[in-house]
């Protein structure tokens, strides 16, 4: 696995991450920051989802369960055990990755649509479990008192810190996506995505690779979950395990172009901006769901390679530097 700095794309990742971090800070634009943190979160979720979906070809419908569990672990360690934010989020994410590995061993024997359905089942089962799990607040969830933000200097500063951490998570997600793509592991995943049986015959350790990618793709979303719910001040099961958000992540990957590194970024960003616009534009507020749905339909029917697929087709030279 190597990060070849002679290729243009890693620099693009750096530039994008830096812009996210610096632009709202320099202009002191809180509103922009709030828009961008949602975009950064979406990009992180979409990129990690892409590892399974785009590379290995496994549709993870319940990808949000890792985000939610990471959120619960992080908030729990924070509020009940009074751990610092970063520690809570990290340890939570490690725990979630381990759980993901275990789940993965179970459900990754399934292929195609069966796997997709199983991930929904996992999400819903975890949702119900947490709803009945009193130490985590059950259906009411966990509320963070306002002085949970005190160690970070109060809510104002805390929200900025959370923002930078989220941008870091986004940057790491992109880097991870890139590194994996240019590694032997990634090659194996892509082979699995093309034809799993052939890959197995050719000596790719499919079982191990699949479980690994399921686990790895859970880590950063779990950290993002810890950060996000800390910022929200409240975590409850319906918000943490929302199947719709899960599916939106899939939409973003598709919109941008699956199995590319840039695809999820563009898709997430576009989708987030579109929704943000539709929400605040008076004319559309009743119909934003309808419009988003129609947009998705058009893409799927007429441009299934997503935006990146379209760009790569029309402008072949971009394939080298915009992966």
């Amino acid at each position, binding site marked *: 696995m190597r990060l070849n700095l002679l290729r243009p794309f890693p620099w693009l990742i750096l530039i994008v991450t830096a812009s996210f971090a610096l632009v709202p800070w320099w202009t002191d634009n809180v509103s922009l920051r709030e828009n961008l943190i949602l975009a950064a979160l979406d990009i992180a979720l979409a990129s990690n989802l892409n590892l399974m*979906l785009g590379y290995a*070809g496994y*549709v993870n419908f319940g990808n949000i369960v890792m985000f939610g569990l990471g959120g619960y672990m992080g908030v729990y360690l924070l509020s009940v055990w009074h751990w610092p934010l970063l520690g809570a989020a990290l340890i939570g994410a490690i725990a979630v990755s381990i759980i993901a590995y275990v789940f993965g061993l*179970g*459900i990754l*024997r*399934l292929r*195609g*649509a*069966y796997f*997709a*359905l*199983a991930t*929904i*089942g*996992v999400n*819903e*089962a975890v*949702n*119900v*479990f947490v*709803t*009945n799990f009193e130490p985590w607040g059950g259906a009411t969830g966990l509320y963070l008192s306002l002085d949970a933000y005190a160690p970070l200097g109060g809510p104002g500063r805390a929200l900025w810190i959370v923002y930078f951490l989220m941008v870091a998570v986004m940057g790491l997600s992109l880097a991870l996506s890139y590194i994996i793509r240019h590694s032997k592991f990634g090659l194996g995943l892509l082979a699995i995505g093309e034809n799993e049986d052939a890959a197995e015959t050719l000596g790719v350790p499919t079982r191990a690779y699949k479980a690994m990618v399921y686990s790895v793709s859970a880590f950063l979303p779990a950290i993002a979950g810890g950060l996000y719910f800390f910022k929200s001040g409240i975590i409850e099961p319906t918000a943490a395990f929302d199947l719709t958000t899960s*599916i939106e992540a*899939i*939409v973003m990957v*598709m919109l941008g172009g*699956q199995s590319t590194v840039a695809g999820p970024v563009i898709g997430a960003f576009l989708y987030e901006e579109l929704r943000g616009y539709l929400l605040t534009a008076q004319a559309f507020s*009743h*119909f*934003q*769901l*309808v*419009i*988003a*749905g*129609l*947009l*998705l*339909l058009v893409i*799927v*029917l*007429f441009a*299934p390679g997503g935006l990146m697929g379209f760009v790569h087709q029309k402008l072949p030279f971009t394939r080298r530097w915009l992966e």
Partner: protein
Amino acid sequence: MAGLLASVVDGVLIGAVYGLAAMGLTLIWGVMNVINLSHGAIIVLGMFALYYLSSVLGLNPYAASPIVIVIGFVAGVLLYWIAVHRVIGRPHLMSLLSTFAVNMVLIGLGTALWSTSPYNVSVSLPSVSWEGYTYTGTHIMAAIIAAVIAGLLYLLLYRTRIGKAIRAVAANRAAAELSGIPTTQILALSFGLGVTLAFASGMLIATLFPFTILSGGAYQLKSFVVTVLGGLGNPGGALLGGIFLGLIEGMATPFMPVSWMPMIEFTLFVIVLIAFPRGIFSFSGT
């Protein structure tokens, strides 16, 4: 004892309706390998269709059912041509997304039209009571109608030429095309049929419970569970799977906190997926 009987009967009755709801999903899946993520929204449309025919136009709910079924079929075929035709044969993900997009559009329009308030279709039928427990006439009627529709579907699939064509396309589309079957039309027909079944189940559910535009979600999840229990692509298995699910709901409730019920359903779902990928109720040669 009376309580247990009540639970068993309740379970079977509502289970038949769950089975009908899942039949559409599994039929579409079996014939064209498409997982219809707008299934829940379509069920709700069936509910609203009945509402308008009965509460607004004043028809008797049961008499209005053939009209609902026809509406369902037309809607289904239309939906096929709009959203599904181009994604047949492409990777699964495409059909998942296109049907999900349809779901978003339907829910969005529905919320704009009907908001999220509950609607109710008033139906009263005589019911049977025993030892303090009541078996409502509407539940019994719904189960009977579900069984009848399932029977009609069986007749269609196994005793008619069209049914044979559908099964041929489900088994091997290319071969069917080579044998002269107009596969595209059969696909459209099958999708229409699947949507009709969903509409019919929505119609029956509307006679039992009040509903909102968002009620479809719960039934869609149950349909997934039932489809897996019965084996993907197996309508007969779906009916049995539905009854099985209903029985579990009915029989577990007296003995444990009700809040754990969904967890049982989903754990069962995942276990069956992993251990019995062909479903518990699939019959070989279907």
